[in-house]
């Protein structure tokens, strides 16, 4: 009884020793939480979104707290692919944890370029593709909500790397299944669900939006029920693994995602509330599986009943 459960999962060819990563943008580029969290205990690290060129991001205020959640409109500032490789990849030489780099672009070509730049370094284990970005060429249409644009991005990224690619779906669509299927058809190794939800808050005294960017993305426990539904729906139609996220604060939350259909999960906003969350989630999943006599976390994926 209570044998050590097998916590390993695979995202394409990426092997994670447990199903827990951190959500892009909530864990910096790696070093920031290293004092508080033993990075090598994570299934993988997912770093903040990187584009081909350096990017300045939005003005402040960039975040705002809401009921059981928060808004963010950081605006994807970052050092660019070359800057990231120079500044942060050496740090990861001291760690064994798999490294997932989140990427984005303003044009399809941008996505291709950043993929090429990050395909080269061996330390980059997988790419997560953020498609919740406006396409400057197409007048701001969103890659994540227009299925043709979406395909063009996935095709482009796929054509530029053999590393596992994870497509991070936008939640604000009428039918997530179409996008999950399109990702699978275009050769993606996995999808991740969900990005933060487009939202807004207005200060009634100043009558100005609380974020400099006016709108931002809602994350945290508030959105968990939305994320669970989207994961559950996508899991009905795709065979590629799903990385589930949205308000995970506990191992129970993570197990809910796994039962809904997620092979792995990511801890996001919870890092701000409690940096030990991801480690607690890993331990909690393991002891729950052991207590239930479930041999492997993979056996639990998508086992929702009724």
């Amino acid at each position, binding site marked *: 009884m209570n044998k050590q459960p097998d916590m390993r999962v695979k995202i394409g060819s990426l092997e994670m020793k447990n199903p827990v990563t951190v959500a892009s943008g*909530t864990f*910096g580029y790696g070093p*920031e939480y290293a004092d508080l969290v033993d990075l090598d205990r994570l299934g993988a690290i997912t770093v903040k979104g990187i584009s081909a060129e350096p990017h300045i991001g939005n003005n402040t205020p960039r975040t705002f*707290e809401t009921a*059981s959640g928060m808004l*963010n409109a950081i605006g994807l500032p970052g050092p660019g692919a070359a800057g990231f490789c120079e500044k942060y990849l050496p740090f990861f030489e001291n760690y064994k944890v798999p490294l997932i780099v989140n990427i984005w672009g303003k044009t399809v070509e941008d996505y291709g370029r950043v993929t090429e730049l990050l395909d080269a370094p061996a330390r980059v284990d997988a790419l997560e593709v953020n498609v919740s970005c406006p396409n400057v060429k197409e007048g701001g249409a969103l890659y994540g909500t227009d299925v043709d644009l979406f395909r063009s991005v996935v095709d482009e990224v796929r054509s530029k790397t053999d590393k596992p690619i994870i497509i991070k779906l936008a939640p604000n669509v009428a039918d997530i299944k179409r996008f999950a299927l399109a990702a699978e058809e275009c050769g993606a190794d996995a999808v991740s669900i969900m990005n933060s939800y487009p939202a807004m808050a207005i200060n009634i005294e100043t009558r100005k939006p609380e974020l400099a960017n006016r709108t931002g993305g809602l994350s*945290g426990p508030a959105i968990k029920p939305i994320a669970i539904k989207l994961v559950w729906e996508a899991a009905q139609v795709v065979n590629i693994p799903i990385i589930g996220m949205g308000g995970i604060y506990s191992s129970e939350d993570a197990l809910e995602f796994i039962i809904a259909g997620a092979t792995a999960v990511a801890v996001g906003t919870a890092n701000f509330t409690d940096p030990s969350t991801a480690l607690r989630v890993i331990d909690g999943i393991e002891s729950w599986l052991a207590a239930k006599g479930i041999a492997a976390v993979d056996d639990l994926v998508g086992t929702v009943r009724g």
Partner: protein
Amino acid sequence: MNQEKTTVLEHRIFQGEYRLLKLSAPAIGPLVQPGQFVHLKIPRLKNAVLRRPFSVFKADAESLSILYKAVGQGTEAMRDIAPGEPVDLLGPLGTGFPMVGQDNIPVLIAGGYGNAALYLQAAALPVKGVAFFGGRTAADILCVEEFEALGWDVRVTTDDGSLGTQGLVTDALDPWLAEQGAGAVELFACGPNAMLKAVGDRAIEKGLTAWLSMDRNMACGVGACLTCVIKRKTETGWEWARCCKDGPVFNAEEILWDE
């Protein structure tokens, strides 16, 4: 930087609207440098996902304390914190105040909780100069006697004249600065943005060094989320610097004020 489950040793009204929260913090307390802060998870406030940053007022090998004022839902909920209750803390965080330069006279300038943020620096500085405290009214002026006991010459201004001179802190600072020889003075300031900018402007004008502790809304508190950024001048223009990690204390010369 540590994450520590601290325990409440004391929680009481300090003065006016300010409360003192003293926590048993053997892992964080001994590491605190002047000007650093802690990031506090408010107990039982289950609809809040963000911690709240507070300057460390005092710290020793076993404990630390903060002074806070209720300004919103988080700080209001903090008033319910009970003695003995566990409080989850990250700290010490950020880059605090540097030592005063050789031969410089240190000058402290504080408004609001700035007095709390400057206390450890006031204690650590080997030379005690002049401390300018400003506030709306007498109740907002904290710790005068404590700073005096450390050997500081405290000058108080209040908007309503209920304590010290009536006026802004700069109304007291300016004539005093005018009397000093250039280069002999180094400023350490914490308070509202307008005050910090006024202090910074004066320092740059007079060629003095000023260290400003900046207050920005924060999410992670450790440099990961890029919420708390301010514009820092570079040779070619500016870059974002993180208030929580690269600051909160910045040299006034670095700061690009454009808001």
